[in-house]
């Protein structure tokens, strides 16, 4: 059964994206209803999970648009000085990550993920929470593979910076 098979990944994705459990439950239900209503348009040549995550992603983006939460389009370049991370060499700063216990580190990472820009957060969650491949993400978002890899790399470095700030 589709719902039972995909409820956990969809709920994980939406939960991380909206940050509220109850809202995430409502959204996940709506996504499955949309999936049910659109089953006729599903083409077997695509992976089902890819198609499902595309519907979920559109649903979350619609929610942000309605709430007027600023989202960075994946097609545009990030604002200068805010989210662009040039391919630099390892930093000189002392370790900020290793000073935390694992449970403390998880808590801080949880909070830091919430602060990621929406479009980077989505790719990051798919990669590290849902375990999607770069190719799957590129297909869902209709983006070049290199762009997806670069965005995830940026997300990780922002996360590391946020962990440093919270130390």
């Amino acid at each position: 059964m589709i719902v039972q098979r995909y409820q956990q990944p969809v709920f994980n994705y939406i939960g991380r994206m909206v940050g509220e459990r109850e809202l995430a439950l409502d959204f996940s239900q709506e996504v499955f209803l949309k999936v049910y209503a659109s089953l006729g348009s599903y083409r077997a040549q695509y992976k089902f999970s890819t198609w499902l995550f595309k519907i979920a992603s559109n649903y979350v983006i619609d929610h942000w648009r309605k709430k007027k939460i600023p989202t960075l389009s994946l097609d545009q370049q990030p604002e200068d000085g805010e989210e662009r991370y040039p391919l630099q060499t390892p930093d000189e700063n002392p370790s900020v990550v290793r000073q935390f216990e694992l449970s403390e580190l998880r808590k801080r990472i949880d909070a830091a993920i919430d602060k990621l820009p929406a479009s980077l957060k989505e790719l990051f969650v798919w990669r590290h929470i849902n375990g999607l491949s770069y190719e799957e993400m590129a297909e869902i978002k209709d983006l070049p593979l290199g762009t997806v890899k670069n965005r995830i790399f940026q997300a990780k470095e922002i996360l590391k910076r946020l962990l440093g700030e919270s130390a």
Partner: protein
Amino acid sequence: MSCFNLERLYAYLEGDLSSAKKQDFESHLAACPKCRDAVAERKRMLEAIDSLPAFEVPPDFAKGVMDRISTVPAKAKVTIFGWLAAGAAGFLALIAALSIFTLVSGQNLIQFFIRLNHGLWSYVKDAAFMLVKIAKFLMLAFKVVHELLGRGLESLKVFTSLISPEAWAIFICGTLLLILTVGVLWGRRFWLEKHHEK
């Protein structure tokens, strides 16, 4: 010894490097404490991310979804039998309506259809006449425009035959000179304005 960039570092951590590149990277790590620290730090961060607990789905979630799906009206699928039944029902309804009309109005049904047919035919004839008139008008308009353009071209030919090749050369050179002068003046004005702003 120059350090690798962070993209290479993440590729190493995710196991995306070819064996040659991996070997290069590892030799560098063995000699560079700064990069070793950077790798260790990011490795720990990624391990912590990958071990984040999943959002717990309530046990009745799937049931809730299925309950809601069951309240969504299913799209009716019309079979061939359905279409035939609908056609038969429509035909019977028409027969019944005509019978009632005949009984109530007391008119002969055949006479009624003949009158109806005459009425419809006169509408069709009127519409056809109107279309023919519109077509005639468009053809006339096309002829007039065609004639005017032809005469315009003739006049132009006569005019150009009166001008000698030398006069043409002078005209073309003069035009080019005029364009050049206007361009230079415009550019100068623009340059002066820009300097004035500064």
